């Protein structure tokens, strides 16, 4: 720690020392739209929604599932050797599956999977994928040091080993196109063919131009940890946030000794930091403490989890938001997909697929 940052930490001044998080106001003003939205089907640890060949797919642990949102039913298509960390589909219906520890598997409609060979440090934390065409698959590698299930370790060790890569399905070629990213968690294509990447630990969306690899921030100072970003039918985007930013977490992230001891002595599920769900444990800080009471937020009782989905316009400006606040349970939404005029969100916290009617406008 340099003298400057040490002084900043003591005085609580400057970018290094001020313990504050961006406000949830304006477009981000909290509402209950996500919390009160329809729960289509309950699936534990549901994540990684994608649409392939006119069907909705998702994952739960190591199971790839085909979900019938009308009937509220889900069927297991296939199980893998590790937790599924990413699902994406091409126009033709080919599904790419990121599997923790195993890397990338490709399914061509049938249940047979073709394993795509990846470097060892890119196999365990594929967080997002995007078929740019039938042959080119863009991949977000959240961390090259930690596996997907160790994401808390990556956050608490200020991980910035994430990368964006391109895999050629036909030849098996694999190329890292941008590195040193702090947990890239979502990918989308911009108007000029650039890639938008949600960089979770830096709470921002960056643009990766087709030529050159220097990321350019297009939306920063976000009040929560961004996860997947997907294209919306109106030309904009949907961005899911899996957990809120809190002053207490920022404090822990500044305090190196405390954090080190916490990581060494306490199990990750009890760490002070963001999470997908409230845990419903009496040992965890009071979730409801974050609810505005008598007009006052209680910073000493911050919630670890939150539900937030935001609509962005073409220029990445937020235009509407859907929330499940600290006193709700539709938390930990990391994956979303717009399909058939509806927005589907996978809430890991609630273990449920959520359907949001897009005809009713969200809070702006």
């Amino acid at each position, binding site marked *: 720690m340099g003298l400057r940052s040490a002084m900043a930490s003591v*005085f*609580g*001044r400057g970018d290094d020392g001020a313990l504050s998080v961006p406000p949830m106001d*304006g*477009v981000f*003003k909290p509402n209950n739209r996500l919390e009160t939205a329809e729960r289509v089907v309950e699936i534990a640890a549901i994540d990684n929604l994608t649409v392939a060949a006119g069907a909705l797919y998702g994952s739960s642990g190591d199971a790839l599932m085909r979900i019938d949102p009308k009937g509220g039913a889900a069927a297991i298509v296939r199980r893998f050797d590790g937790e599924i960390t990413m699902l994406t589909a091409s126009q033709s219906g080919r599904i790419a599956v990121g599997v923790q520890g195993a890397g990338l598997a490709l399914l061509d409609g049938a249940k047979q999977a073709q394993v795509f060979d990846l470097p060892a440090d890119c196999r365990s934390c594929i967080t997002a994928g995007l078929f740019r065409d039938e042959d080119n698959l863009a991949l977000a590698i959240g961390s090259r040091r930690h596996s997907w299930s160790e994401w808390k370790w990556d956050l608490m060790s200020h991980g910035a080993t994430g990368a964006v890569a391109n895999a050629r399905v036909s030849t098996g070629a694999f190329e890292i196109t941008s590195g040193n990213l702090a947990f890239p968690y979502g990918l989308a294509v911009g108007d000029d063919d650039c890639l938008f990447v949600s960089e979770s630990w830096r709470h921002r969306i960056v643009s990766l131009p087709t030529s050159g690899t220097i990321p350019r921030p297009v939306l920063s100072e976000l009040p929560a940890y961004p996860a997947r970003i997907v294209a919306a039918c109106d030309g904009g985007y949907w961005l899911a946030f899996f957990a809120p930013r809190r002053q207490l977490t920022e404090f822990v992230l500044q305090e190196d000794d405390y954090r080190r001891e916490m990581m060494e002595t306490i199990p990750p599920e009890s760490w002070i930091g963001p999470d997908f769900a409230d845990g419903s444990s009496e040992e965890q800080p009071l979730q409801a403490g974050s609810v505005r009471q008598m*007009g*006052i937020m209680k*910073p000493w009782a911050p919630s670890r989890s939150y539900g937030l989905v935001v609509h962005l316009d073409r220029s990445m400006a937020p235009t509407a938001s859907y929330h499940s606040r600290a006193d709700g349970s539709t938390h930990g939404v990391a994956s979303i997909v717009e399909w058939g005029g509806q927005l589907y969100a996978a809430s890991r916290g609630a273990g449920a697929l959520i359907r949001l009617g897009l005809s009713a406008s969200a809070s702006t």
Partner: protein
Amino acid sequence: MNDIVEFKHATKEFRGVPAFRNVGFSLRKGEIHALLGENGAGKSTLTKVLAGLYPLTSGELWVDGQPRTFTSPGEALAHGVAMVFQETNLVPSMTVAQNLFLGEERFFNRLRGVNIRAQQQLQRLSFHVEPTALVSSLGAAKKQMVEIARAVQHKARIFIFDEPTAALTPEEKEHFFALVEHLKAEGGSIIFISHALEEALAIADRISILRDGELVATDQTRNFSKDSIVQAMVGRQLKDALYSGAAAREARPAGRKVLTLENLSMGKAVRGATMSAFAGQITGMFGLVGAGRTEMMKIVAGVLKRDFFHGGRIKLNGRSVRFGVPRQASRHGVAYVTEDRKLDGFFDRMGIAQNIFLGKLVKGANPLSVVTMAQAVREASKWIEQLNIRAIRQKARVVELSGGNQQKVVIAKSLIQAPQLIIFDEPTRGVDVGAIAEIHAIIQELADAGAAVVVISSYLPEILAISDRILVARQGRIVEELSIEEATEEKIMYAAVH
């Protein structure tokens, strides 16, 4: 009849603008009477008439069953009326005893004798204040005790407290309420002005509510609830066409985030304020006196400084900034239009163009360049024309202008800096109706042109009429955000007082 004070058809006007109209208000002997209302409702002016600071324009003031016209506070005090202001009028460098007997000194004074008399006086009132203590060393509540003791020393029987609890800690408030009860038990009559409704409901015998200068309700406290008080405080008919178009208007969408306050703190005035302001949008800020709105924005503009330790963060276009002086803020495109234009807004002996051009100089001119007066006038003339600043003669000094035109000079002084963020603090205070419409139009045009605009106003219809989104401040924090679609006067006031 035991009315000790009675206003009959009382009206007070300032240059034709009524502060209150045709008010009938009475205070009974041995009663605590709470006087409530929005900022600008006329509460303070009414009590200042009783305290001898202003005369009535028409109507009568009766004290002890006799019509009275007090021409000075001294005369009011001679008739037993004492006003205790939020900011006490004590001399901080003198002791409590010296302050108690200030103005009553004998030819030869014995300090010990003064201290003993002060001790007796304070003990009689059960005030635990050391007579030899310097007033500057006392807390707000003890200062009020000294102020009250001084009033009692002058044989006051009618006490007026204007926002007495605004600066007090919860513990000091309890002490103060006990003190008021004590005064009542001693036969005193008390008028209690407060924005804290729960305090009024807790200690008052009767409550009167003023709205837009008219007395709209007087009744026993038990007949009021918080909700009914809020309703009475804001339930005005929006007769004025100036503010009637609010409901039909569509809010502008938010542009990029220009200003972010994160956990901003400054002493007791601003306590962890968090908010944003967006380009192309008018962010209205409402709050009652002491809510900390002005202080928050003055910190942004470099007029005040946040706490040295853990004072929070201000971001301008996503980058942390800390302005030591307003000039730095101006150079970063932040303009603050003061709420007190006469004190901070302009140089009253200078001309219009000179004042406006000062804004440009603040922003930072080339130190090597020479600007002639003709150039300055030419530059300023554009703004004089654009804002329609009217003066009797071309070279009129600003002091000779009407309130509305003075305000437009202050606004022009800010606009000449081409700010990206402009903060208006009570932009239409003391401005005539015609100029209000013009100033509102200027504010709207600024937002339409893409600037981030923050408007602080204590007048709810104004906030509702011009804002695209409304923030409510209370006790140094932003406690509520309302979109223009969902905002009502009741909701805003409810957030401001609860």
